[in-house]
């Protein structure tokens, strides 16, 4: 309530200026009216009094003239003077002067003398009828003089001076009475006016406050003031009332609008958030780049940017056996339906790839399944290829997709089409497969038309030609660097123009296994038994790369597993992660192996128990077999504790290479 009072006060301050202006106007009007009124009244009074004075003066002068005629004839100045003195006591009579027929002043009421001005006026002046004149005399001010001849001037003239001072005095008195009355009227009027004005301005103040509150209102429900404003609308059958009504209905309209807006916004937000989830799911389906995998001959770099929340582009790469499948696709259309179709396609391909079948079979199968599921008549262009990690043989099918490039040194070679149709269109379509041999450090560049048809602000397309040029001229030495170069060039080209379509790039570079795995190799393992799988893989790769015999490969695998599993199982007393390093070297047609670990000091050759072959089955211990196997499968073996490391070295003759 306090806050509200304060607001009203602030409002009162604000509307104070308008009230003050109106009040000032009213005061000025009243003062003006008072002045005009006074002037009019005074003029009227003045005229009225002057008329009365005139008639009074004439009456006095006639009265004196009548009685003085006798007295003058009797030449009795004392009586005459007495007569004059009597009349001098009449209010308004300033002086009386009596002249005889010869213009001599025979009696007057001046003290000490008749003013020189009057003497001059009287000198030689004769009149036979009553005359009037205004004189200004020292000490008397303005005087209205009536000169009345006695017996037509034969006896003399009586001059009666009527002072205007009483008139002025009366006028002043009128003003003196008028002004307080006017002041009282004015003050009363102001009070009445002020209260009336409050009646008018109070709603305005409330309206102003209400409107101000509207500005900071959330419009979830009506302002508490709305009731008061409705009351004003009902109370005032005038402009203020109508204004109040309008503002109240404005608030209602805004509330309705905001409510609708909130509902639609909430719905939209819900859709958007679901789309965001869909986008995350979709992006989550895409595999991560494998560029850092040390033993891979195939290195992948990938990029996908949907134009909308969800897109129709996809890519995939799948490791199956010695092959890596690389896939890029683009579903016709965009948005949710495209995304779902894309996901379906991707899942089908992923599943089929696990069967380790050629791309041709894969595409035929996926096409058939997609057509069975495709009720929306969507289709998808797909490029699907399979790289043999060891041989570099690349077999592929292009189902209506833009022809990818191969970067070979400073050239961009277009991968020939296979004449395949987009998936999801023709049931039992036969997809032809082609093969080509990759050269060392070739990079296959898969992309979607989001790249080739990227627009600049002038609606020019990026084109395959420019992409080929970019790929050829790139100085990149890895798939990732090449991808960065391509995306950079596309961004420079579009120069801030909106991305109109999904953009997908998938790069796969291949390097010859023998080139990547030399006879000298150092591999790190951690103290986890799952590393045994990796160990087997490393031995397979090393053996293939160095042309080891299958027997030697098998035996090497067996020896290393026994030694390293032994170390992992028994070599550590803590639960920290430790490195186990394995070095491969070939010296004098013999393979030299060296294994280092930082576990507790342990000599497997001596600390492990020997296997006693004479024991019966029941007495045969389960442990100790591993070392026994190792000793039997190596040529030489040697243990050494070097500083904090256990070092085991063994040799194995290569014999005839494969």
């Amino acid at each position, binding site marked *: 309530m306090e806050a509200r009072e304060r607001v009203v006060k602030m409002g009162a301050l604000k509307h104070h200026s308008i009230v003050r202006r109106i009040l000032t106007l009213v005061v000025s009007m009243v003062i003006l009216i008072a002045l005009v009124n006074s002037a009019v009244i005074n003029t009227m009074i003045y005229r009225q009094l002057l008329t009365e004075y005139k008639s009074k003066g004439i009456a006095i002068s006639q009265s004196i003239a009548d009685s003085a005629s006798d007295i003058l004839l009797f030449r009795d100045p004392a009586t005459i003077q007495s007569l004059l003195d009597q009349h001098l006591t009449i209010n308004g009579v300033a002086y009386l002067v009596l002249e005889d027929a010869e213009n001599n002043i025979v009696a007057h009421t001046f003290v000490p003398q008749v003013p020189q001005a009057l003497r001059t006026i009287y000198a030689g002046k004769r009149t036979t009828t009553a005359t009037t004149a205004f004189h200004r005399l020292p000490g008397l001010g303005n005087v209205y003089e009536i000169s009345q001849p006695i017996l037509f001037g034969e006896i003399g003239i009586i001059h009666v001076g009527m002072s205007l001072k009483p008139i002025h005095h009366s006028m002043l008195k009128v003003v003196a009475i008028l002004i307080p009355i006017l002041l009282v009227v004015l003050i009363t009027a102001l009070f009445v006016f002020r209260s009336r004005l409050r009646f008018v301005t109070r709603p305005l103040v409330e309206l102003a406050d209400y409107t101000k509150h509207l500005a900071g209102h959330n419009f979830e429900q009506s302002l508490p003031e709305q009731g008061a404003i409705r009351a004003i609308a009902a109370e005032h059958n005038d402009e203020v009332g109508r204004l109040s009504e309008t503002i109240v209905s404005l608030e209602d309209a805004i509330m309705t609008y905001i409510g609708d807006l909130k509902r639609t916004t909430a719905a939209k937000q819900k859709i958007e958030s679901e789309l965001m989830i869909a986008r995350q799911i979709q992006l989550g389906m895409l595999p991560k780049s494998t560029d850092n995998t040390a033993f891979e001959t195939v290195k992948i770099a990938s990029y996908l940017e949907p134009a909308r929340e969800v897109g129709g582009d996809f890519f995939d790469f799948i490791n199956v056996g010695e092959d890596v499948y690389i896939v890029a696709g683009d579903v016709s259309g965009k948005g949710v339906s495209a995304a779902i179709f894309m996901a379906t396609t991707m899942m089908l391909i992923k599943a089929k790839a696990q069967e380790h079948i050629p791309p041709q079979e894969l595409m035929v199968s996926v096409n058939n399944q997609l057509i069975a599921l495709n009720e929306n008549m969507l289709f998808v262009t797909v490029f699907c290829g399979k790289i043999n990690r060891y041989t570099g043989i690349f077999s592929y099918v292009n189902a209506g997709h833009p022809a990818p490039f191969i970067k070979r040194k400073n050239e961009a070679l277009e991968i020939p089409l296979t004449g395949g149709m987009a998936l999801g269109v023709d049931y039992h379509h036969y997809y032809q497969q082609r093969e080509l041999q990759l050269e060392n450090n070739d990079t296959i560049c898969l992309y979607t038309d989001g790249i080739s048809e990227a627009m600049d602000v002038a609606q020019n397309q990026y084109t395959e030609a420019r992409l080929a040029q970019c790929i050829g001229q790139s100085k990149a030495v890895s798939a990732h660097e090449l991808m960065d170069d391509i995306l950079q060039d596309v961004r420079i080209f579009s120069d801030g123009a909106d991305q109109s379509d999904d953009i997908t790039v998938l790069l796969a570079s291949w390097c010859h296994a023998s080139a990547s795995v030399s006879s000298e190799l150092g591999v790190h393992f951690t103290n986890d038994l*799952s590393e*045994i799988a990796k160990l*087997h893989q490393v031995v397979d790769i090393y053996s293939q790369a160095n042309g080891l015999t299958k027997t030697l490969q098998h035996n090497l695998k*067996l020896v290393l597993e*026994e030694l390293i599993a032994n170390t992992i199982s028994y070599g550590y007393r803590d639960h920290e992660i430790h490195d186990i390093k394995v070095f491969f070297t070939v010296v004098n047609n013999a393979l030299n192996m060296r294994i280092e670990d930082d576990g507790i000091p342990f000599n497997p050759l001596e600390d492990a128990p020997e*296997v006693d072959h004479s024991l019966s089955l029941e007495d*045969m211990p389960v442990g100790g077999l591993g070392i026994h*196997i190792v000793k*039997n499968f190596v040529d030489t073996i040697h243990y050494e504790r070097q500083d904090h490391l256990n070092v085991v070295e063994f040799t194995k003759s290569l014999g005839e290479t494969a």
Partner: protein
Amino acid sequence: MINVEFSKEGDSLIATVSGQIDTLTAPELQNRLVSAIEQGENKVVMDVADVNYVSSAGLRVFLIIQKKLKPLGHGLEIRNMRDDVKQVFDVTGFTGLFLFS
């Protein structure tokens, strides 16, 4: 990377194993066979034609199975073992403990 499929041949349980029996796969193989024996199988034949690798951990599985079967009257019979795998049995003297066919 190991696969075990069971089948019956008369009163014998034929366990066809493929893949390699190493430190990682040995526990699974052991579980499958031990649970079969515990369910009452006392005549077990392991067909290891598709097993290309056996490490000491694998040898231990064979030993444990043999120890469980021997008191039941019939020892473990191993069929179609590859030579390079057999060499591991030979080296460790395990060959005499099993019936190879």
